[in-house]
């Protein structure tokens, strides 16, 4: 029996050959690591050969140990060499076609309407406004009566309102939350109410049967029209930028008086007139006004003591103006190509 024919030594040679082949064939660092575990690992065959060294005849033992160590070393060296080959290399970069596309991850995104709403809420939160919420299925009392809207008013018309039954509607605006908040709290009140509202409008480029609204309400002693105007100016500057002007126009809402519509410079044409602004240079962004004393009376506030202002905005329309989106339906269709543009 010669030493070279020792089964243990044979096994070591075989393992070394296999290992070197596997290392050479490893296509990436993962595969290389797998072969490392397989051949050099704690529970790998080389380790178990070393473990069974005691079963070899004593004269063979140092040879086996030496051979095993040599194999280990050879494998480790090959491993390092292959690793260097597989690792991204600076020196080879010159030969890489840098115009090939890079690898990406999916980009998630917040809906453009949500972005607008978050920004609006954020700007008003600097002025002390907190966020409030109310039900979308609403009683006629809160949706109309508490807001000084008579039920024979065109706004309460069956044609425009989703009635669920007598006295229950899908709220036609977020304004009912005004009354709910005032009933639940004593002044000072400063809230914004982001939420959905419903109107019987067919789904077309300019309308949706349900749409987002942001309501705002501020009630305190000494809140006057001038302060209201200053708050809206602050908002317009913060949201649209300092170059955008705003103006207040007389308007009518049953729950505010004086009532005003707020226009801002058309951002598409910078005020010179274009189809977006119907050639007026202005785009209307909110309805607003001083809270009508009748509303205060409805919720048990003394209208001689408390004054306040309220406003309502349509974030969908603002998003359309801001991003130049021509058709409102795009906002609600969840086309990933569309949503991805705002991610």
């Amino acid at each position, binding site marked *: 029996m010669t030493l070279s024919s020792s089964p243990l030594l044979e096994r070591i040679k075989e393992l070394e050959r296999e290992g070197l082949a596997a290392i050479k064939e490893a296509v990436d660092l993962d595969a290389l690591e797998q072969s490392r575990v397989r051949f050099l690992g704690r529970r790998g065959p080389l380790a178990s050969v070393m473990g069974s060294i005691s079963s070899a005849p004593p004269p063979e033992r140092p040879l086996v140990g030496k051979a095993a160590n040599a194999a280990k070393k050879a494998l480790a060296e090959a491993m390092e060499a292959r690793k260097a080959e597989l690792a991204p290399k600076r020196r080879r970069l010159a030969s890489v076609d840098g115009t090939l596309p890079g690898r990406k991850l999916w980009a998630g995104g917040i809906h453009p309407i949500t972005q607008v709403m978050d920004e609006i809420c954020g700007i008003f939160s600097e002025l002390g406004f907190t966020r409030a919420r109310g039900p979308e299925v609403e009683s006629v009392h809160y949706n109309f009566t508490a807001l000084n809207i008579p039920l024979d008013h065109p706004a309460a018309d069956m044609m425009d309102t*989703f009635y669920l039954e007598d006295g229950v509607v899908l709220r036609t605006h977020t304004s009912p939350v005004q009354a709910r908040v005032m009933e639940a709290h004593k002044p000072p009140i400063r809230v914004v109410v*982001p939420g959905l509202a419903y109107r019987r409008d*067919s789904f077309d480029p300019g309308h949706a049967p349900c749409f987002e609204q942001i309501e705002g309400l501020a009630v305190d002693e000494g809140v006057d029209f001038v302060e209201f105007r200053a708050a809206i100016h602050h908002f317009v500057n913060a949201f649209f930028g300092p170059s955008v002007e705003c103006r207040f126009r007389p*308007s009518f809402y049953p729950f505010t008086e004086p009532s005003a519509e707020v226009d801002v410079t058309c951002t598409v044409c910078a005020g010179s007139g274009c189809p977006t602004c119907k050639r007026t240079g202005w785009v209307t962004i909110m309805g607003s006004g001083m809270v009508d004393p009748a509303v205060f009376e409805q919720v048990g506030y003394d209208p001689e003591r408390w004054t306040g202002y309220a406003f309502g905005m349509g974030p969908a329309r603002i998003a359309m103006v801001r991003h130049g989106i021509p058709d409102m339906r795009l906002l609600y269709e969840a086309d990933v190509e569309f949503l991805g543009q705002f991610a």
Partner: protein
Amino acid sequence: MNISYGWVRELAGAGGGSGARSDLPAWLLRAEEAAARITKIAASVEKSETVGVGLEGVVVARVLEVGPHPQADRLSLCQVDRGNGEPVQVVCGAPVIVQGGAYAHVAPGNRLPSGFEIGSRKIRGVVSHGMLCSEAELELGRDRGGIMRLGDDAEPGVPVADYLGLPDTLMVLDLNPNRIDLACHMGVARELAPDGKHLNLRPSGGPEWTPRWCDGESEAEGAGVRVEVKDPSRCVRYLAAVVRGVVVGPSPGWLAGRLLAAGLTPINNVVDATNYVLMERGQPLHAFDLACLRGGGVGVRPAREGEELTTLDGQTRRLTGRSSVIHDARGAVALAGVMGGHDSEVTAGTSDILIECAHFPPLAVRETARETGLATDASYRFERGIDATAQGDALRRCVELILATAGGKADPEALRAGAPPPAPFQIPLRIKRVNQVLGFGLDEPAVAAALDPIGLTTSTDAPGVLDVSVPGWRGDIEREIDLVEEVARRVGFDKPAEKVSRFRPSAVPDDPSFARMDRVRQLFVGRGLLEARSLTFVPGDFRGSRADLAVPNPLSAEEGYLRPAIVPVLLRRLEHNYRRGHRAVRLFEIGTVFGVGTGEGREKYTEEIRVGFALTGGRFPRHWLRTLRDFDIWDLKGIAVEAAERLCGGSVRSLAGDCDEDRRGADEFGASWLEWPGFGMYRDDELVGMAGLVRTEAVKEPAWAGLVIAGEFRLDAVRPSSAPRYEPLPSFPATRRDISLAVPRNVDAAAVEATMSAASPRLLCQAELFDLYSEVSEGDALRGLSWSLEFRAPDRTLTDAEVDVEMGKIAHALEEGLNVAVRGS
């Protein structure tokens, strides 16, 4: 609302003639300034356009002779006088050309407003020198199927534009619903005039008429006719006058021009007079051909069921009791406050007329207009509430205009049936209150100066209080706050005043659901999902997902219900994306879902905010180095676990769907789309959401679609904030050992992990499954699972021997407790 700027200017005192003033504000000198002023203080001017441009070559021509065209029956041949004594021959296609009548003529070499050049040309062998024009050809409004007839006051040779007082600017106003007083020229003039209480009314040019009034509460008789008003809810007050012997013909130029500039088409002098008064002062009137009223009188009553009436537009309408009509002895002759009847219309042959000037209440007119589907100039104003005191003056004005333009003789008696007009009233206005609401710092004279010019006459009562008398045309002003608004408007919303927006506290806490939503968005957006916002309307049965809350008056059957769950809606959005060719779709939505419970009224309806998500297609964007791998059930579990653990502080359990409890859970979340087994999301042992693979039947998918994974959970399960406590980072390194196990089929991975943790409670700090072989020896009975275990002590580096001891304890516990064997040892 259409307004002629020229008309308003004249009323406000800037017109020609005696009424002109010298102290005029800028907005009475230029139309653009006027539009800006009206927008700022009263109503938006949506657009302005010039009426009567390009009429340079159009002059008045009188028809001297009219005869048939020798070669064509349908054409006529006219000789017209253009004021220079030389008759001009014109061929004309209109059926009725009146000899002696005045028309608008364009001579050869001139152009129409459209730019079309007129020449002399042969028409069927006869030369026509220019043409006589219709309203449309002159761009003066709608064509009425003929040539535009001018008034008998038109002098041949005068440019038609001069004759009609054009060009003028027509402004389109978008009125606020409370400001119906602005739906007439006097109303707008009051806002613009230096002194709106004294407007410069154009004299009618005819005799004055001061009638003797025949009054009656429910009926009045006089002037040979009778008027009956029994139901105040159908008609508040009905005034009538009779003019006999009128000659119906074209209106004079100044009146026709005014109507054209206000966007109306002149019809004849009687109808034009009623329209003129409507546009001047906002009071609708109607003229009946008295000969066509049977029984010598009119009344107001509900229409009879099935009663028919042919209205002025030529349509025959079947009515019900919801509509109100004017009737004579035999039947309905007009829709009260909406439109006159065809059979009693004033025509060329009319001689005696009855002029109605009534006050119909808003609700009655709204009902009539709605039932007949009509919206007219009259109904628009009645529905919004007209000046309750204006009927007498309006009727007088109309009769005088008719006498001036159509001749005839007005009966000295006039009728007045119904309630008398309301008495004027005063509202006290506190200056302190004005400043409390506005913050403008106005004094008493400034407030009075804002109100007086528009007819809100003020007088001082007590110190600091103005008594404001409210004119009839301001029916919208009832309270002190209404006057405050008037002050704000008139002073200008932009009145300078120093104040910065400032922080004020709110007694209302931030609703936690918004913070919850923010956290949800952060998680999902971070994982590459796009936020969707869908309409909340769904069909009643959307592929197995049943909605309970029906909308009684939906826009369509497809939108007949409110969504009971989010995922079915997202699946529909997914299909939309498939149709657009998108294979990789990752959506989430936060929205309200609805149901019907028990209770009364609003309490019966339940609503809850849910978070839904749905993903399909490639886990990563396609890249040239790697083939696309799709989302699968393990991605779903990963997302569900993250949502449950990180957002809710809860956990996820695998649900087989083989017990009622599992199925009830799926039901609660509308998860009829779920392919069992699914995953339940739990917080404090309460099921708060469901997630799983979407059954293929639940989505209409193209052949190239991948697996769809989805889930839905309650927003209120999400913790509004997460402020995790810091855990000290380890000071000593960990020791890693791999362990490969042969696990019987009936033992799940969680049980193995639990057993390992229990066996080494202090030192085993992490167990990470890294491999699973399904086929281990002994057929299908065993699975091979490998974990990588990390051992660590907080106070020292563990020795190999210590770890060996822990490994031994773990192997023993697995063997004993679960019959799990360690492989390769």
